[in-house]
């Protein structure tokens, strides 16, 4: 079977699923376009400017400049993760959209990859919104910071694929709060987001490097946006790319196990 060779018809199927979601998103653009702007402003205001005034400098830069790239990275994570955890689950379980699409030539594998691609797009949209704000506040150097957009897309892809793994096995929508609480929330706090990773005990540093993908995204974002050192950037990038492939394959397999019965 040509399971892993993407054919033209497969790419087309993925695109159709993606564009269905895009269409719904655009219909509700007034509701959907505000949160990506508001959320980072809250964090920047409270933590960056508020707490930051006590903190002073971190790694040789003002605290608010230190956390700005991390807030962008975390917003990409949240947008993509929640889209493919809750959004995908609602479409699969409550709206029965997958059943409807599976009766057409589009296969379940294409549906799931389309969902993940859409989750990545949500991350990209968030990154774009935050980049505008950060540029206005002088917290992102242009045009070099534009490189954050392709990174945000890859990071979004990764978090969307991870989320799809969770939504494929969750017994109910309420149970999705477990990965949110036990994985996403700690990742938000302990991935070098609000303080340098080097402050953590060494075993935790290693854990963050291996198991918390946001760590890699934060390192790369900070390197791109404020010129922080990122000596291991090929490793960071490789982790993200490998994570995308592995999580996507697992998500597709788990969804096939759940829905093709």
């Amino acid at each position, binding site marked *: 079977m040509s399971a892993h060779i993407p054919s033209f018809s497969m790419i087309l199927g993925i695109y*159709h699923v993606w564009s269905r979601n895009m*269409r719904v998103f655009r219909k509700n653009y007034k509701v959907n376009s505000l949160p990506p702007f508001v959320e980072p402003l809250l964090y920047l205001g409270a933590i960056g400017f508020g707490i930051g005034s006590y903190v002073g400098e971190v790694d040789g830069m003002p605290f608010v400049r230190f956390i700005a790239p991390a807030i962008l990275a975390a917003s990409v994570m949240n947008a993509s993760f929640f889209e493919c955890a809750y959004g995908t689950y609602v479409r699969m379980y409550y*709206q029965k959209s997958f*059943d409807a699409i599976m*009766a*057409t030539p589009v296969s379940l594998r294409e549906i799931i990859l389309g969902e993940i691609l859409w989750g990545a797009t949500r991350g990209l949209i968030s990154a774009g919104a935050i980049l505008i704000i950060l540029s206005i506040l002088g917290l992102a150097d242009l045009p070099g910071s534009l490189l954050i957009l392709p990174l945000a897309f890859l990071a979004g892809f990764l978090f969307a694929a991870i989320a799809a793994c969770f939504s494929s096995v969750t017994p109910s929508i309420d149970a999705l709060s477990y990965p949110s609480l036990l994985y996403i929330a700690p990742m938000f706090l302990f991935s070098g987001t609000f303080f340098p990773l080097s402050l953590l005990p060494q075993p935790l540093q290693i854990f963050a490097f291996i198991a918390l993908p946001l760590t890699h995204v934060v390192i790369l974002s900070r390197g791109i946006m404020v010129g922080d050192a990122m000596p291991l950037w090929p490793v960071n990038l490789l982790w993200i790319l490998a994570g995308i492939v592995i999580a996507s394959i697992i998500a597709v397999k788990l969804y096939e196990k759940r829905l093709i*019965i």
Partner: protein
Amino acid sequence: MDRIIDAQNLRKEYGSLTAVDGVTFSVKKGELFGFLGPNGAGKTTTMKMCECVSPRTAGSLSLFSLDPDTEGKVIRSKIGVVPQETNLDTELTVEENLLVYATFFDIHPDEAMSRTDELLEFFQLTTKRTTLIEQLSGGMKRRLLLARAMINQPDLLILDEPTIGLDPQARHHIWERLLTIRSQGRTIVLTTHYLDEAARLCDRLVIMDQGKILDEGSPQDLIDRYIGMDIVEVDNTPAVKKCLESQQIIFESAGEMVQIRTSSPRVIADSLLTECPGIRVISRPATLEDVFLLLTGRTLRD
């Protein structure tokens, strides 16, 4: 190509549960073919295998002479499916539901728009074009599901309980539309547990129960074969029973009523009315319901 669907000893097992227990049937081109059976008979599971969304456990199955296991994509492009459970896209309008569904079949947007116009007209939904799904009545949702299933101009239409929960007007509208669709040369397969629906629509049907096909034929053929006569129904009272026994008439107790199968309903009715005055006597031709109850019994199903 005469046979649209061909199934031989088709089986579906979920763990230790056998949902479909070796069924053999074939559907010819242009036919309106029905699966009649009580809840849990295995009708929906059989449909899902034909729709190439659920793989079979054993047996052989082909649609358009293609194997669902390997040619699912091609087969699905030639069929239209109306599911039992409404799965319209609630975030979209009536028109958008059709347009978006068309994209899954790679139908060009211009073509999709003209087909949408036609289908909305055909199913009398034109005035609801920009309405959101949640504002539609049950009957409208069913009609839209049918319209959606027709967007790829399918050779085969598979409908799982197409008129479930609808009022008589909506049912008649759908029946009429289905007969029109069949007259265009398309093949239709439907499941139902409404006997009037099966009797009225189906050219041929199978009666299914507990995963097996009990019999097959046209509605009239089945009635002639199993009942073959008219039915007289009388109140189930001791006096009636005594009277029937004294005249050596064979009868069957069915709850509140006693049923007599006979080729001379008038004679029996007259004699009963003379012998036991004041009772209620109904004489009627046999229906598919009589065949159905004869074959599947009167025990309640979940």
